[in-house]
């Protein structure tokens, strides 16, 4: 499988749509254990990214990801801004100036993004952050793609895994980010960043259908 610039534009559009639709939901999740801005921030960031995409009209997948990354970095703020900004910047670096991205490139790029998040935030699986979704999902993708499967073939499994790991943050006590200040009171709530990460992977998968 090869993914061209259109695919990545579609991915961003779908991700932005999910963030807009779930702005209040994400904000409510963040209000319970954080400061209630995650949905507002991500929606503002996604809109800034779409604006930047349409005004600068980047041509390659790498340029698209860089444009989105820069837009998120300078508009989201909070913890999610640098984290999501890094995700897209790292993916852009991994894509280089290729016109089309294959499954292997994609897996490598996502792995780089995961390393970026972990380097920045120092969170491990189980800390009740977006890493709880990212690490298992990226590992699953990497393994399957190394074994010759393609993203369209494993899409349903990816989305299901992301959803499962997102929900699995509920019983955890947060050890990183703002929710950690709540101590045991953070138990019983779903992590907002894990939830937006679920939409990330879901959008990546749905973008394929629009080919």
């Amino acid at each position, binding site marked *: 499988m090869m993914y061209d610039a259109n695919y990545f534009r579609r991915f961003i559009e779908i991700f932005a749509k999910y963030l807009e639709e779930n702005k209040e939901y994400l904000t409510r999740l963040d209000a319970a254990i954080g400061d*209630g801005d995650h949905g507002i*921030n991500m929606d503002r960031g996604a809109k800034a990214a779409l604006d930047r995409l349409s005004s600068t009209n980047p041509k390659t997948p790498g340029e698209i990801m860089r444009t989105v990354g820069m837009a998120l970095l300078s508009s989201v703020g*909070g913890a999610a801004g640098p984290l999501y900004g890094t995700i897209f910047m790292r993916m852009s670096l991994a894509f280089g100036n290729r016109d089309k991205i294959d499954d292997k490139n994609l897996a490598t790029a996502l792995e780089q993004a995961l390393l970026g998040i972990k380097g920045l935030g120092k969170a491990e699986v189980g800390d009740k952050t977006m890493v709880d979704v990212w690490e298992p999902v990226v590992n699953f993708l990497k393994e399957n793609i190394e074994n010759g499967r393609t993203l369209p073939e494993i899409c349903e499994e990816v989305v299901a895994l992301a959803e499962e790991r997102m929900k699995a943050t509920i019983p955890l006590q947060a050890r990183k*980010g703002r929710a*950690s*200040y709540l101590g045991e009171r953070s138990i019983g709530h779903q992590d907002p960043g894990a939830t937006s990460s679920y939409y990330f992977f879901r959008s990546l998968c749905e973008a394929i259908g629009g080919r």
Partner: protein
Amino acid sequence: MKKLINKPEDVVKEMLEGMAAAHPDLIKVHFEPNFIYRADAPVKGKVALISGGGSGHEPLHGGYVGKGMLDAACPGNVFTSPTPDQMYEAGKIVDSGAGILLIVKNYTGDVMNFDMAAELLKAEGHNVESVVIADDVAVEQSLYSAGRRGVGGTVFAEKIGGAAAEKGWPLEEVKRVVQKVADNVRSIGIALTPCTVPAAGKPTFELKEDEFEFGIGIHGEPGRRRLKMKPADEIVQMMMDAILSDMPLEKGDEVALLVNGMGGTPLMELYIVNRKVSQILDGIGVKRYRTLVGNYITSLEMQGASVTVLKLDDELKELLDAPVHTPALRWRT
């Protein structure tokens, strides 16, 4: 939600315009990216102090820009850390060549965004150092969390660091003394009511008429514990117990006090809090060298208060007393 605002998405921009209109002698405002900076920046030979954080904590940080305190403040959206481009652009304007000290409140988002800005500035040859303020004793198990939050101690850090920079101290020395403040300051906060982020339109949590939150931060988040409402003296006793058990003060020690309102608390109540705080410190023989009572670091319209205690030595006393002239803090000038 009822607020004296126009559109929720415009609050930060319009606030900055209102600040620029009120204090043209002290500050200038840069838009996109947003930051407030000293009207006379860059000040030759002086280390530049930059801080910032989410908006909604006014007068922190913008109200502390001026002579003897900050060179620039970078306001994010309400309760949301600013983005790296803000500190980066501010740094380019206010660095006179003597270097930049970033004063960062310890929140994952703030730390990451300031770190990124520091990288960008260093890449362009600026000398950049940071001090992270983490004074909130409400965060008990700091090993199993993102560490303590930065709250009221930030005001003292900015004041004292600003005085050191104004005296022409080099970057390492300014950093040292701000780190000394960070090491010797402790805070704790409580809330009687939540607050409403304009863009969210709803309070971040709900509290019954007979409940209060103990151990809150400054972002309208719930605290460590929800407790039954008590008389002020009992609440203050709990707050001071939390601070003093973390900060063994000895008889004869001198402290600076900040009895801070969260934005919606009448000054009357803050003085009632200060009465008990003072009684407790007097009771253990700790000398109150200087006391600030008022709204210094807030959470929008939240009703509540925080207490900050800074242990002083001669160096800190001198710097605390040094002249300062900003929109929100002014003395000896």
